[in-house]
């Protein structure tokens, strides 16, 4: 019923296809450039942005370094406030818990607030298998769900669709899911939004169970926070009788006061607004107001493995603002689907391989889904050094080494040489076809030179020795490519 990330091709192959989709590229380019320009203005309004960013990073580091302490404290506070806390080691367990909770209410329908954690666990599919229908209520998620599609952006999941496509999806599919699209629906955004309003209102008014994620969970007070724009979040969080929130264990922040940092960093970084239209905060349950039962499902699913890597750990600071996507030249061309997970763009390139382990050609290729231009690091409100983590993960791919997988220290072998080569070649082959990406990348590469290995280590070495690729910039990438690709046969395929 909904798309799945399973069996996605590796990044370069997927990107290769999506970059040939001109409509997709045009949609994306317009969107990312628009958000970018607005965001710069919103950030410039705060003269203490640098300090806020440092504080945000430090609070997250404090949390991560003592995550056990804060999780236990969160559990106590939520329980004290009338909520019930569940722990899920992996996606299957989270889905089992949520399904069990829904079935126990006797309901067979849930309304959902946009949540990447439940995308990650594939909750909608698990609910469907148990005979429960999950309705996405964020407008973009609704578009994705009705279109049997996958989200392609953290903030604007249907960014790859234009208005005419959305109108067609609504006309074609709304009736199957409830109220049909109005007669003669046009492609004006206001009309499309109105159609969604009517379609979903019916569901909000009858829903007894809701599933959400959360942007923050405050250990000290047990307060959960959801940041949104449309009010669908508020509908789900306050109208149903039972609320189930699935929250990654990295979403905890120590104190109430810490929210003053993130509520300034997040809206300006993501929607480029001083503040998003709606923020809901709830602490357990309140008599006579909102759900009578509140369940918090704390999700690991690879997060503790990520925590175990002292370089990669910083990826868990991410507050999912999507600023890194909007500045990334590779994302702009490739689109979100190429990353093969709910986490696209630069953050996806470092988070997905860590959450899942370097388990398949997709995960192995993701650390190469970057020009290492450093724009993502500059944009990130919690100062995640994404290029540093990318280089670190590339090293793991080519050299192998010790990683933590489902809690166990494991030595992974270097990726098979041919696989690595193909991966690198494809990523390079794709990038060299896009001179603007490269020019920008080369300019910025100079600033982050220290992050680039002189040559690829391990089995990649022979490859890099033969082609002076990682050397920046004695010979420009484009010149190098012009000189050497002739001998390599078809684009992206080493001979």
């Amino acid at each position: 019923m909904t798309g799945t990330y399973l069996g996605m091709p590796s990044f370069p192959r997927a990107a290769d296809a999506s970059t040939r989709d001109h409509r997709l590229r045009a949609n994306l380019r317009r969107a990312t450039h628009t958000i970018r320009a607005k965001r710069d203005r919103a950030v410039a309004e705060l003269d203490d942005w640098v300090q806020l960013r440092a504080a945000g990073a430090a609070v997250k580091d404090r949390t991560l370094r003592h995550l056990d302490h804060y999780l236990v404290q969160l559990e106590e506070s939520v329980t004290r406030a009338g909520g019930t806390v569940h722990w899920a080691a992996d996606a299957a367990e989270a889905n089992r818990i949520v399904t069990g909770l829904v079935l126990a209410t006797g309901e067979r329908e849930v309304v959902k607030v946009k949540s990447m954690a439940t995308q990650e666990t594939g909750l909608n599919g698990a609910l469907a298998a148990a005979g429960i229908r999950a309705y996405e209520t964020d407008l973009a998620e609704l578009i994705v769900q009705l279109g049997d599609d996958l989200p392609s952006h953290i903030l604007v999941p249907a960014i790859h669709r234009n208005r005419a496509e959305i109108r067609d999806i609504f006309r074609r599919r709304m009736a199957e899911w409830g109220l049909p699209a109005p007669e003669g629906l046009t492609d004006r955004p206001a009309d499309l939004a109105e159609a969604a309003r009517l379609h979903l209102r019916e569901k909000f008014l009858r829903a007894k169970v809701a599933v959400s994620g959360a942007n923050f969970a405050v250990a000290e007070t047990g307060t959960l926070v959801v940041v949104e724009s449309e009010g669908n979040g508020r509908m789900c969080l306050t109208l149903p009788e039972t609320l189930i929130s699935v929250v990654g264990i990295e979403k905890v922040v120590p104190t109430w006061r810490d929210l003053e940092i993130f509520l300034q960093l997040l809206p300006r970084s993501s929607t480029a607004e001083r503040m998003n239209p709606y923020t809901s905060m709830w602490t357990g349950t309140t008599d006579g107001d909102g759900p009578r039962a509140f369940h918090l499902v704390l999700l690991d699913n690879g997060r503790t493995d990520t925590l175990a890597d002292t370089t990669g750990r910083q990826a868990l600071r991410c507050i999912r603002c999507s600023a890194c996507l909007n500045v990334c030249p590779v994302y702009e061309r490739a689109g979100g689907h190429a990353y093969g997970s709910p986490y696209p763009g630069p953050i996806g390139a470092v988070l997905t391989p860590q959450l899942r382990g370097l388990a398949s050609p997709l995960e192995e290729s993701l650390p190469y889904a970057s020009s290492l231009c450093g724009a993502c690091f500059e944009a990130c409100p919690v100062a995640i050094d994404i290029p540093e983590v990318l280089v670190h993960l590339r090293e793991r791919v080519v050299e192998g080494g010790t990683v933590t997988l489902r809690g166990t220290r494991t030595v992974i072998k270097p990726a098979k040489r041919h696989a690595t080569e193909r991966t690198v070649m494809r990523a390079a082959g794709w990038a060299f076809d896009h001179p603007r990406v490269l020019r920008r990348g080369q300019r910025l590469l100079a600033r982050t030179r220290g992050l680039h290995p002189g040559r690829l280590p391990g089995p990649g070495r022979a490859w890099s020795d033969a082609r002076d690729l990682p050397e920046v910039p004695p010979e420009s990438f484009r010149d190098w490519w012009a000189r050497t690709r002739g001998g390599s046969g078809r684009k992206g395929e080493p001979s």
Partner: protein
Amino acid sequence: MSSGPSSGSSRERILGRVRQALADVPPSEQPGEHPVPRDYATQHGEHTHSATVGLLAENLADYRARVHRTEAPGLPALLARLLAERGARRVVVPPALPDGWLATAPVELVRDSPALTARELDSIDSVVTGCALAIAETGTVVLDAGPDQGSRRITLVPDHHLCVVRTDDQVVSSVPQALRRLAPARPLTWISGPSATSDIELERVEGVHGPRTLEVILVAGDPREL
């Protein structure tokens, strides 16, 4: 509603993995000890109180809330006018909205109570509430479900929200100042402009699910005695 024995063991497993993953953190380090520099501003710029109220009005309007200003004695007439302009007939109000506010408005009042269903709310034209406070720098009103604000859903389901802010004592400059005054144990709703979406080609459309019209009334003096 327990999720079975697996949950208990998963708790231990996850906490165990966390502790193992943090082998690099010195055992003597206490959770609060990892330094957090808090040299960011507690407010941006110095403003007189009236400039702060002006900034609030400006930022609210910038996010397409309709902003009105009045002295306390003028509030009932203003509310009556705004409801009439909208053609509102049925208006939901919190349990303890001062009686005088809507005394002159020719509308049917529905008091918020747990017995009121979501469907009933959906047939109501407007809602009138007070607020807990308002934040000037971000153009935000915050509701904390106090007796003059009612339950969270009454400001959500009707399409038109009139929110009264006392400028004498309810306006703060910044997010840090707001958090200091709010009680986390209460359910909180922060509202910055009406419901909006930019999901279709990033074109902003007001109102998908929440009220499409937000009117904020900045009142000088004390309207609680009305």
